[in-house]
């Protein structure tokens, strides 16, 4: 294993957080490479040169039809197979915002059963895009990205981030499997009732991020790459803040996983 894990930053038409996500991985000690989906479709095996597959935020294919839908439909067939093998070989996959939408809709994050996908990310209750900061609690011992992470303060910027499971059974199974990895919480850190705007989109169980049953595929709506420096914090002019923004640890954990 190399000292600097290689990070594949997957780019598609409309991806727009690739640059700063690559920067965050770099700052965390990784070696990011931006790869266009056309290139990956042509040579799916190139995935094997990487340790982390990251699908960054943006509006892949304009989020036409539904957010992340078209890119997720491209991650099937040969590509799904190599990503499956990639995952099985103890490597990591992360999707941020649009990347999370892609992971969930492609079936990579939660496997479809006889009735189709068990859950999705749907339109915010407000019915529109919103950019705001949210308080989060991470709670999944199995997700390497969240190793040692408790509270987080990160921005969201999305229109379709409401987590909806097909039914209660799906929800309880995910909860039991410690897959509801990140949740919106109140500013005082309490979970309990998290009303709008602290739960900004109406997500069931206040879910902001999920991992798969192994913990190694992780998706979240908030943008950790937008809080890696203290000056990203909306109140940095008020308080003395630590040198690292809250989001950086997620990238560092990914790197340290291969240390």
């Amino acid at each position, binding site marked *: 294993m190399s000292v600097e894990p290689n990070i594949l930053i997957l780019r598609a038409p*409309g991806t*727009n957080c690739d640059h700063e996500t690559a920067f965050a991985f770099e700052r965390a000690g990784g070696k990011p490479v931006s790869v266009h989906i056309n*290139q990956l479709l042509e040579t799916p095996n190139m995935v094997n040169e990487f340790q982390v597959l990251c699908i960054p935020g943006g*509006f892949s294919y304009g989020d036409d039809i539904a957010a992340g839908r078209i890119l997720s439909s491209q991650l099937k067939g040969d590509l799904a197979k190599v990503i499956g093998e990639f995952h099985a070989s103890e490597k990591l996959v992360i999707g941020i915002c649009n990347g999370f939408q892609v992971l969930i809709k492609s079936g990579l994050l939660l496997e479809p059963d006889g009735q189709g996908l068990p859950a999705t990310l749907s*339109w915010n209750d407000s019915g529109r895009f919103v950019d705001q900061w949210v308080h989060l609690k991470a709670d999944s011992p199995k997700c390497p990205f969240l190793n040692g992470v408790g509270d987080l303060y990160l921005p969201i910027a999305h229109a379709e981030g409401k987590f909806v499971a097909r039914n209660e059974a799906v929800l309880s199974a995910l909860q039991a499997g410690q897959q509801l990895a990140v949740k919106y919480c109140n500013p005082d850190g309490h979970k309990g009732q998290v009303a709008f705007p602290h739960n900004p989109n109406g997500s069931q169980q206040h879910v902001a991020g999920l991992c798969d049953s192994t913990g190694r595929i992780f998706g979240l709506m908030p943008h950790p790459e937008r809080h890696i420096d203290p*000056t*990203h914090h909306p109140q940095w*002019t008020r308080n003395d803040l630590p040198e690292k923004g809250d989001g950086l640890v997620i990238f560092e954990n990914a790197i340290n996983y291969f240390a």
Partner: protein
Amino acid sequence: MNQPSVITTENSPSKFQNCDFAVPDSSTEMAEAQEPQATGSAQDTETVLWQIEISPDAGQPDRLARNILADAKDLGISASLSLSASRGFLVQGPLDRNQVVQIAETLLVEAVVEKYELGRCGDPQFGVGDAAHPGLFYVLPLAGVTDPEAESAKLAIQQLGYPIEAVRTFCKYRSSVLAPEQESILCNKLLANESIEQVVTGPLQLSEIQLGEPYQLSIQHVDVMGADDSQLEQISRDWQLSLTLVEMQTIQEHFQQLNRNPTDAEIETIAQTWSEHCSHKTLAGRVSYTDEKGTREFDNMLKETIFAATVEIREMLGESDWCVSVFKDNAGIVTFDEQHNVAFKVETHNRPSALEPYGGANTGIGGVIRDTLGTGLGAKPICSTDVFCFASPDTPLEDLPPGVMHPRRIMKGVVAGVRDYGNRMGIPTVNGAVYFDPRYVGNPLVFCGNIGLLPKEKSFKEPLPNDLIVSIGGRTGRDGIHGATFSSAELTDASDITSGGAVQIGNAITEKMLMDVMLQARDRNLYSAVTDCGAGGFSSAVGEMGEEIGAEVWLDQAPLKYDGLSYTEIWISEAQERMVFSIPEAKWPEFRELCESESVEATVIGQFKPTGQLILKYGDQVVADLSMQFMHEGRPPVIRKAIYQPVPVSELSESSERTTVQNREDLLAILSSLNVASKHWVIRQYDHEVQGGSVIKPLVGVENDGPGDASVVRPILNSRRGLAVSCGMNPYYGDYDPYHMAASAIDEAIRNCVAVGADPRQIAILDNFCWGYTDRPETLGTLVRAALACYDVSTVYQSPFISGKDSLNNEFSYTDPTSGGRETISIPSTLLISAMGQVPDIGRCVTMDLKSAGNAIYLLGATENELGGSHWSLVNGLQGGAVPVLDPHAAKQRYERLHDAINQRSVRSCHDLSEGGLAVAIAEMAFAGGLGAELDLSDELKRSGLSAAQCLFSESNSRFIVEVAPEHEASFTELFAGDARRLGVVTEAPDLLICDAGEERLRATLAELKAAWQSPLDWD
């Protein structure tokens, strides 16, 4: 299967003739076709038009219907209206039912939250309403209108391996019973905008999506040689050329010398090149200006005022001149750091936004992004700014003149248009403002600005002779034909019917893809020049680039959205998301390969042949052969008269003596006035943090909801250098004196920048003049007056103008339905100043929210009795008074000292004083910081001789409130030498308390101040 005969000829005799759908001959034949296919066998490859309707599952919100109902409520339409909605796709191709089920379930439907129905278009199942919702309406995009979602869906379905031909999206609404006039309002005001969409009442009865008819070349000539003056004027009108008689005569003379008539393409090209929009002939023309000081003759008004200021500043700066390229490229360029420059441009997109707010704003932002992309060899867009002017969203429907859209609908559409384009492009929208005045009712203003970062060595371009002319990005359609000439004409209540061709819809992803490959091509040195296709399309882009060389264009090579475009339509189309490159032949293969690798279409459409002529060909036929010199130098100068008569300063129409209670009420009223009220509903819909460089956000403070003065971004993530972006505008002052309005706008933009930590010695500014009908000497007079102030202030501040744009003739004419008389509404003279400042170290930036109890509060700058045009006068309904005048020399010194204080870290918070003066500023600082403030004005009142209300609400320029920690007070006051006066302290108490020698003059709680400020535009 017996397929109904399909009408594929151009003129369907039905009500659909305006659209590209064919209609079956009769519904009986349609019924035969509706037999569901028993088994979808793969061999059955007849082309079918499938209809897929997708609705929210039980228990899921009906988002589309909810939006329409909210709009209906805004307009006061039928409280009893009940609505349900579906979205859908028409998919045309040789598909059987099973295949369509596959497509629906793998691609189109979100099964966890949605359900769907599918069938052949027109199947009876789609025509059935339920008992509660018998009304049935389909809304479809008009023929030729960009439908980005359909384009994406088509590609995605093809990628799944289905050979489909066409896709269209639609929305379907089922409504409760409506009276006919209610139905008409629902269809025309809420469900659809007839300039881009059509409503079909009842079931869809379509058999085919037509893909256009092949074009048969037929060269059109325009008979100008033998025309008399009235015929020349008629030609200009008939062809929508917006050319004056003198201009038509010049064209006539030119072609008489050539001894032939021009082709339509030639006369259109000249009209585009000479349009106000492209050549700014009025402001860059001869003006004879008369005011109280006498008459001044300008050969080129802009050059002798605004440009002249920049030239002088650059000369004064000498070696340390930081301008790079001003007033010549698509955007102005200034230096940033050792390796980079920055480009800034602000455009207006007013006329298109009046007709179709969403598409107008959408293409406005798309266009200005292409401006920075097309600056030098290409700048990477790093942030946007958007400023709008509307009539009040609370205007009663019955008060609107005929032919205008309700301002609330315009505002929602414009905001959504900017949001959807900017967010998809991944460019943070970090700054903006919204102004309201009833006179914007027929002419809303939409200013879109963009800043780009480019390597120093990529700041200039030069097309080389024999370079290929390459178009990349979107395809060409009939979008926006006559946009350039249309935007130079006055709007009327018939505009929404006569100018349908002017409406464009953007497709942000096409532009994003273009940008992605373009910046790679730039860094690989694959082209020698680039420009965007904006107003005038290829005509302007190629005409400008080839001005010094000559060009030959092969119009039949341009990729089209659909068949049937004539050579002239291809040439002048304003289809979006296209850019034109000048590429040396040797580099073309690599450029093409790069574009292909990211699925971006790139096509050679001609060559810059060194002939000095612009030659257009369609196949072998020459359809235009124009001298570049005539196009660019041949326009007869425009000569205008401008008169300005100063309005004498009058007394305020009422005394400004106020009680303590009245002061509180006035403060709450100003905080609640639409111009001052929180714009969080707008701001939060924009992604202002994408690209990861956000330093100071538009909303700041302890709850992230206070009004910041300017935003700061860090364009290079591992550098500490930042850019501050702000703006200034105050149309109310213009009603009193356009000189002071302009001076105040510049001052406001600059002081906003300085307040967050920008260096006042390096602030670049941009002008955008939006005015009424400038053929009227009095109207042009106010503009010249404003331009003179621009010169005066810019030179003192040493803040150069680096780019600008004007939009003239913003007047709306209509026939009053009751009197039958012709009425005209002119917008208030509106000058937007946008400022871009540089922040040497982002770690020293300052925000406006109060930070800690016990800190001292200082006022910088002098308060005068300047309540004319103020918000205090506005909320009290008062006229008269003096508008704020500017002392730029004193201001400049203050700004430099403030910057020094910020650099010494002695400023904890800083807020500029603008609308509502001192009272509003301290109130905003207090509620943003969640801390109280206690001020005593006694020294200030004694010193100035003002009343408390004057001191609280006067809008005198160049002032700030600054919060200083006790340990820094000594050095702070020393630095300002009397220009900083201590007014009071920050407190823990949740109150704002302002006294005069212990006597209360204003008291309010933070909660009520904040609520007053947040509630007016806190929309759902």
